């Protein structure tokens, strides 16, 4: 039967090469015996359509051949939990090392925005390379373990001789929404928030609250603050007012136990505005000379290095603030997903 020959030829192409003749001979014998049975039942040869239906019922050649292949995973279920743990750990540590290395390199060699931008742009490449290397290592381990089961047992699997008493102690829950704040804690937050706000408002009139005895040398200093720093100061005051107000309202409404994730994220976002204002200040001038005509020659270089130092300080704070905000948003996303998943169950 030509159709059966064509079918077996198609199966053969997908069989393991070292056993394909043997498998094919057996499959042919079985199918020919089945065909003979069918034809003797009908008392005639199968028509083209009947033969096609029969072979279609047996299955597509590639699927039939696949059943003869050994089951092979890229990373199997036994190894997968270890792989996932190692992958997350590796990605985290590579990101930490990479961030420190890039920050040091930029600070020492090329302190400018394009270097920062370039460093950020390379993050996906670094992460993908790390993931690819870890995956490749685990795929090789899996392959060797499947190929040589006796001689190459799966390493890295959790040991079977563990003891429950060796497990780490209970972790203290301190995250948002995990351990409710006490009333005393909430009251203290409001009181100290008001005190901090009061202190902040008094600093312009009484600089010794910030500078201590150094404040008495301010009138003699040749420097003064640029208007952008005054605006920045009022932004900081406004953010503090908002935070203290929020906490006071929470206390009055009795909702101090609830999660403050949304408040914290809103504050973080608003906190970026004054930082952006500082970073976009014209020529990064934060400190001015009181009498430029008189003091430029003597203090000009100090003024430039002071302004550059402040600009870099603000840049670092900005980067940390953005990363912190992303972390908080990520955590909120994870919590929302967990709640959603728990709700689905």
């Amino acid at each position, binding site marked *: 039967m030509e159709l059966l020959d064509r079918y077996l030829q198609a199966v053969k192409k997908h069989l393991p090469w070292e056993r394909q003749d043997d498998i094919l001979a057996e499959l042919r*014998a079985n199918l020919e*015996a*089945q065909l003979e049975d069918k034809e003797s039942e009908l008392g005639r040869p199968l028509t083209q359509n009947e033969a096609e239906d029969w072979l279609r019922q047996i299955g597509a050649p590639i699927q039939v051949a696949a059943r003869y292949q050994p089951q092979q995973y890229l990373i199997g279920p036994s190894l997968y939990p270890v792989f996932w743990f190692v992958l997350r750990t590796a990605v985290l540590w590579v990101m930490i090392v990479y961030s420190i290395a890039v920050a040091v390199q930029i600070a020492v060699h090329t302190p400018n925005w394009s270097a920062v931008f370039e460093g950020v742009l390379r993050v996906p490449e670094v992460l993908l390379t790390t993931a690819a290397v870890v995956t490749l290592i685990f795929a090789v381990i899996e392959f060797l373990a499947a190929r040589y089961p006796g001689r190459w047992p799966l390493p890295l699997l959790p040991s079977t001789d563990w003891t429950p008493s060796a497990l780490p102690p209970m972790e203290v829950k301190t995250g948002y929404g995990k351990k409710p704040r006490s009333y005393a804690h909430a009251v203290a937050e409001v009181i100290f928030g008001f005190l901090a706000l009061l202190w902040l408002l008094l600093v312009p009139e009484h600089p010794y609250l910030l500078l201590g005895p150094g404040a008495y040398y301010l009138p003699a200093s040749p420097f003064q603050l640029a208007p952008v720093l005054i605006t920045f100061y009022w932004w900081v005051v406004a953010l503090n007012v908002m935070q203290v107000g929020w906490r006071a309202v929470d206390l009055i409404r009795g909702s101090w136990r609830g999660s403050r994730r949304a408040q914290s994220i809103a504050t973080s976002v608003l906190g970026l505005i004054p930082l952006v204002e500082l970073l976009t200040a014209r020529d990064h001038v934060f400190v001015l000379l009181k009498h430029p005509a008189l003091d430029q020659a003597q203090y000009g270089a100090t003024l430039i290095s002071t302004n550059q130092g402040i600009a870099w300080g603000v840049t670092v704070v900005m980067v940390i603030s953005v990363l912190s905000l992303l972390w908080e948003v990520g955590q909120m996303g994870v919590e929302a997903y967990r709640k959603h998943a728990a709700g689905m169950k």
Partner: protein
Amino acid sequence: MTIAENIFENLRLELRRGCLTLAVLAQLRQEHYGYTLRKALAERGLEIDESTLYPLLRRLETQGLLTSEWREEEKRNKRFYRLSGDGEGIFAQLLAEWRAINASIDNIL
């Protein structure tokens, strides 16, 4: 196929997989080649696709539970399988396990 049907089908296949092995081992206490084994199982109410049964025979032989030999019958070379010595021991253990599970399920129900 709906999600529920898909879940059922996956669970059904999981449930069937072990039982098929047990049935094949049981049937191969007598010698068979692939097609007659399939017919014998079908006559006792257990239909198995060709693409499932024939590779399963190969796997069980590789594991040492079956022995096989090529032999001519009705002018055609066929590969005959039967339970090996090791296979008989494993089959007895699997059968006991299967009976215990069945009894437990009956008790639960």
